[in-house]
């Protein structure tokens, strides 16, 4: 038994492969655009942590707050992971995803440190609240565009091989 496959059919099959893969990138982009809730929730949790940790807490109390912060963030990650309908294959990620992740951490850390120093130097009242608000604000402002930037290149990267094969 044999299956005849001519060049035209092979080309059509290559088109057929591309369509479902586009649906994967549609889902990734849809999630990236609609995850504002996750960003605001994370920023809110960070605000509470920074505001509380700015108080003069004893070491054990700070440890407790830190543990609670990590636990809440972990729970949030689990909840969002359960809602996800698919996960992109690791080979499809680009350097932008890693860069956005580390840049997000760096921007948040630098904002926390810089706003803390500024608040101390100017001896502002409610220093921990100011530091928490500035840091959470920087996080919200940075994460959205960074996420979109990271996701923006995935589709081209993922389908370029197929285009090379079938688009000639």
């Amino acid at each position: 038994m044999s299956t005849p496959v001519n060049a035209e059919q092979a080309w059509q099959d290559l088109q057929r492969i591309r369509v479902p893969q586009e649906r994967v990138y549609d889902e990734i982009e849809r999630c990236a655009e609609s995850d504002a809730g996750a960003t605001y929730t994370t920023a809110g949790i960070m605000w509470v942590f920074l505001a509380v940790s700015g108080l003069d807490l004893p070491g054990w109390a700070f440890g407790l707050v830190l543990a609670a912060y990590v636990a809440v963030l972990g729970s949030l990650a689990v909840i969002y992971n359960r809602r996800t309908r698919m996960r992109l294959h690791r080979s499809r990620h680009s350097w932008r995803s890693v860069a956005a992740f580390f840049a997000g951490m760096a921007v948040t850390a630098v904002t926390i440190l810089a706003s803390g120093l500024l608040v101390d130097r100017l001896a502002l009242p409610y220093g921990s609240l100011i530091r928490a608000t500035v840091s959470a604000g920087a996080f919200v402002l940075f994460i959205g565009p960074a996420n979109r930037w990271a996701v923006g290149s995935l589709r081209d990267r993922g389908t370029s091989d197929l285009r090379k094969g079938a688009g000639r």
Partner: protein
Amino acid sequence: MSTPSGFDELIHPATRLSVVALLAATEWADFPFLRDSLSLSDSALSKQLHTLEEAEYLEIRKEGGGRKRRTKVRLTSRGRSAFEGHVAALRAIVEGAGPAAAPAHRTESRAWPEPAAATGAGQQQHAEAGR
């Protein structure tokens, strides 16, 4: 005419090819996502998934219970290799046919227009059924 190595009869049918192509881009996907993305009925998708599972091309895992029960589908390394081999074989067929198989309307790689009706141009390849 010999078939390029890697051509896979099991994933050649259109629906199975779409299922495997979608899963190849993911670590895993859940059943409703596959069904909606491919516009298939539950039974049609289930049938294709079980055929592929029997060939050890994918794994089906059920998580949770009751109304929160979730079915996750994941391509195995064997399935991924088969898909990559199949894509390479399809490319080889297109490339082997030369310019005759590359219709004039395929001028821009991003345009992806529908091909004209098959004219019989290009080489006729035959895939052996036995894997």
